[in-house]
């Protein structure tokens, strides 16, 4: 029976795969059906994992096992319920309290982390001696790294109109950004093709057994 159900499962998977691919020809009922089933399964998956991975171990089990020791957890539980009040127009305002706590925490942590990782550390990584590289390519690369970073940041400075001579660094910044977007396009091609390879491998190997 297991092997029958395995084969049946592979056929279901193949059906959904081809149904989604059928969109390439044109929009059709099979695609629409698959799309909605995907949304339904996805939502249920999240819900089940929220229950078993968060609500149970981090809230309910703790409260059940040692209520007095974990009574403070009633506060986030209450705030969580206030969040659900958003569903009703008259009680919607109650959800502002949990949202403000979440937003405040996120803003505080983001400010600190981005300041360190994306500003201070990145500036540090740019403050290098370009001539310390072992070969000519390294020296050129280091110079490009410094010039590209400085002119790129300059380009993103929108507070003052860049005119005349002040346009030059901005223009150089755009060239670097174009090089980076080109590289990103190359990597995007790689990413998208990889996903297609994965699906074709499934069809050819698991479903049709053409490849091993």
């Amino acid at each position, binding site marked *: 029976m297991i092997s029958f159900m395995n084969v049946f499962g592979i056929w279901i998977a193949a059906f959904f795969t081809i149904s*989604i691919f059928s969109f390439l020809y044109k929009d059709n009922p099979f695609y629409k059906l698959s799309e909605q089933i995907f949304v339904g399964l996805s939502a249920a998956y999240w819900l089940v994992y929220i229950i078993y991975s968060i609500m149970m171990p981090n809230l309910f089990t703790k409260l059940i096992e040692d209520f007095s020791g974990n009574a403070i957890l009633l506060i986030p539980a209450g705030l969580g319920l206030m969040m659900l009040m958003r569903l009703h127009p008259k009680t919607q305002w109650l959800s502002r309290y949990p949202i*403000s706590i979440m937003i405040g925490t996120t803003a505080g942590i983001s400010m600190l982390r981005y300041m360190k990782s994306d*500003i201070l550390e990145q500036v540090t990584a740019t403050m290098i001696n370009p001539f310390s590289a072992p070969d000519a390519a390294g020296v050129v690369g280091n110079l490009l790294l410094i010039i590209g970073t400085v002119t790129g940041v300059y380009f993103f400075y929108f507070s003052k109109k860049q005119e005349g001579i002040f346009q030059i660094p901005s223009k150089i910044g755009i060239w670097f950004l174009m090089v980076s977007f080109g590289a990103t396009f190359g990597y995007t091609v790689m990413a998208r093709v990889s996903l297609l390879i994965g699906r074709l491998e499934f069809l050819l190997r698991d479903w049709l057994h053409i490849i091993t």
Partner: protein
Amino acid sequence: MKRSLPLILAFLVGFVVILSEFIPHRPFNQIVSTLEQWFMIISGFAILLGQISLIRMNTHKIVNKLPDWQYYLAGLISFALMLIFGILWGMQETPGLLGSGEGISSWLGAKPFDYLFTNAYMPLSATLFSLLAFFIASAAYRAFIIRGLESNLLMITAVIVIIGRTSIGTMLTGWLPESMQFWHFPILADFIMEYPNSAAQRAILISAGLGIVGSSLRIILGIERSYLGGEK
């Protein structure tokens, strides 16, 4: 009260989080640690809210027989099935309300939740995203046109990276002598990624970082209030 108390709360919470970075001692580190635990639980409820909204919206479409309501019904049924399977028998190593469902699992070869995940969710998710391969191929033909210096730079880099990140690059310039190794496609692609690309991406990171720090500060100080919604 309905608006100012949440603003004060956001300020206090944000302020304490920042303060604890500079004074990592009691009581600040304890407060922040507690906040982090609460954040996780409230986030759980937030996701729950999202799922309930989705179900409500779909139910509304089905009840009112809006266009394509049959597909929404299929979505709702698949939602209910996956949810019931997950609650009753759990998933993978996690037991559910009725235990691990040894009987049904031995019949299916996996727990019902996992069976649906592997044979329906996985192919649907992976195939939906794989469609993008076709669209990018079409875009390469229609939109990737040389028009000036900037688009030339973009094109040349893209071509070098596309060639350099595969076996073709290795074959095309693999014969180059040691002194010209810099022009070997994979090495050239690595050079582009390490220097000009990193420079531009770093500029984006620094600029976006400054923006995030600024908007975080605006939220903490109560200047940015859009997250509170309307006036009611």
